[in-house]
């Protein structure tokens, strides 16, 4: 009997060891990737890099300002559309969970969440690029907005569902109309969760390349026009990384570093925000 228990215990410890090993092994690729990007990319950052457009092949001294500005404009434009629409749909879903519209909308959110980003790009090509006759930042933003929607909707819905009904009742009983109850009580109480959903969706979309391949396309020049093609960080990385020129590779490394810093910062901000702004219920 003693030996049996002994071997069972050893087995238990052995399997725990395997599990711990595999679990923590995952940190290795992350560290390798991060370190490599930092090593290759950080050295590229200087004022010239941040303020110039890419240099033509053969010349050194280019920068990525067109991509920086482009990403900023397109993501902001996408957010301006996706945030109100997403929040509205999220509010509807949390307020009317048992209607048929809620069922089908929820289904569509799940579908949209799983649609490959390249498919979104294809569709927006036919919706906006072909009719307008040109690649454009507008179509790029549209594709990004579509990708942001499921994240904003789900986080709004889930945050608001956690709020107790008594909050709504208190406001309604004071003679506050429904829209003010939602906008002045419910949404502010769920602010932390909703905001974190928004920042997460931005962090997700700022690194998306596929939806921009045939919508915003890319632009070697600095452009502020939303009806013309526009460069973006991930697209620049893609184009220059797959080119045969070392100078362009360097630009891509620098851009990767900046993109990584953005994305990681946004994720950290999200975590801090959720903790700080959580309304004590």
């Amino acid at each position: 009997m003693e030996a049996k228990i002994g071997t069972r215990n050893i087995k238990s410890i052995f399997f725990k060891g395997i599990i711990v090993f595999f679990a923590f092994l995952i940190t290795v690729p992350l560290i390798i990737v991060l370190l490599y990007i930092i090593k290759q990319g950080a050295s590229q950052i200087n004022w010239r890099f941040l303020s110039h457009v890419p240099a033509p092949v053969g010349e050194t001294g280019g920068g990525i300002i067109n991509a920086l500005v482009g990403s900023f404009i397109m993501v902001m434009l996408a957010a301006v559309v996706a945030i109100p629409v997403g929040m509205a749909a999220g509010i509807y879903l949390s307020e009317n969970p048992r209607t048929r519209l809620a069922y089908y909308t929820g289904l569509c959110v799940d579908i949209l969440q799983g649609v490959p980003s390249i498919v979104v790009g294809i569709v927006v090509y036919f919706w906006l690029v072909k009719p307008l006759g040109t690649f454009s930042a507008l179509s790029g933003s549209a594709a990004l907005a579509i990708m942001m929607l499921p994240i904003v909707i789900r986080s709004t819905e889930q945050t608001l569902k956690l709020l107790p009904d008594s909050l709504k009742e208190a406001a309604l009983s004071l003679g506050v109309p429904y829209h003010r109850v939602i906008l002045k009580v419910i949404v502010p109480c769920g602010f932390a969760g909703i905001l974190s959903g928004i920042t997460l969706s931005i962090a997700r979309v700022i690194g998306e390349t596929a939806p921009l391949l045939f919508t915003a396309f890319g632009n070697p020049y600095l452009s502020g026009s939303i009806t013309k093609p526009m460069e973006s960080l991930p697209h620049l990385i893609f184009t220059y990384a797959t080119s045969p020129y070392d100078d362009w590779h360097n630009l891509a490394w620098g851009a990767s570093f900046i993109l990584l810093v953005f994305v990681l910062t946004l994720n950290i901000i999200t975590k801090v925000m959720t903790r700080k702004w959580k309304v004590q219920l």
Partner: protein
Amino acid sequence: MESTIVRAENYNAYFGDNHVVKDVNISINKNEVIAVMGPSGCGKTTFLRGINRMHELIPGATAKGKILLDGQNVYDMNAIYVRAKIGMVFQRPNPFPNLSIYENVIAGYLLNGIKVSKADKDVIVEKSLTSAALWKEVKDSLHKKGTFLSGGQQQRLCIARAIAMQPELILFDEPTSALDPISTSSVEALFHELKANYTLIIVTHNMQQAARVSDRTAFFYMGELVEFDDTKQMFTNPTDQRTQNYITGRFS
């Protein structure tokens, strides 16, 4: 001088097909404290919420008949207006967690975007908190959020919030059932003081509370208003057998 403030005429309430409040006729006078008691599921809370039109906010909930507030049928009036005119205090204290104590008291104005001068706001806040016997305890922390308050204090904050709207009628839905005994008695003492300026209708699960605080008591059973009488009378010599059974504890 008696004057009717609330009168229900053949009032019925439903949840879908479920007939929860059956043909209630009742007349309540100004400055009365009315207790509404009965066993679980008897429809007393549903009836209460029909008065300020909170009942219909539940999906599938409907009502028939009239409830007259100062002679006007609330079901012919603007529901938002009705709710603003009638105050309500709930079973679980529910101050707004994103607002300070000060803001909670004037929430009825704040959330509606009604412009009130700072001086007037201060007056309303102080008066309401005083009437709710909470002023002394919170006057130095008005701009903090109310999460540090005890259950009893939070409930009194909710009462202050309701009073700030200057209603004539305040509805209470089992207001002390979530409170400890000490807080309960402080709220019950409040009923006595509020009576001078307001009419109170208090749904309670607690017979003894009904006997303690009210002028008249209404007894609901299975959706019907079985008996409505002077409180002393009802508890010493009830007319209906069902009331007698309830009071003597045959069911609860």
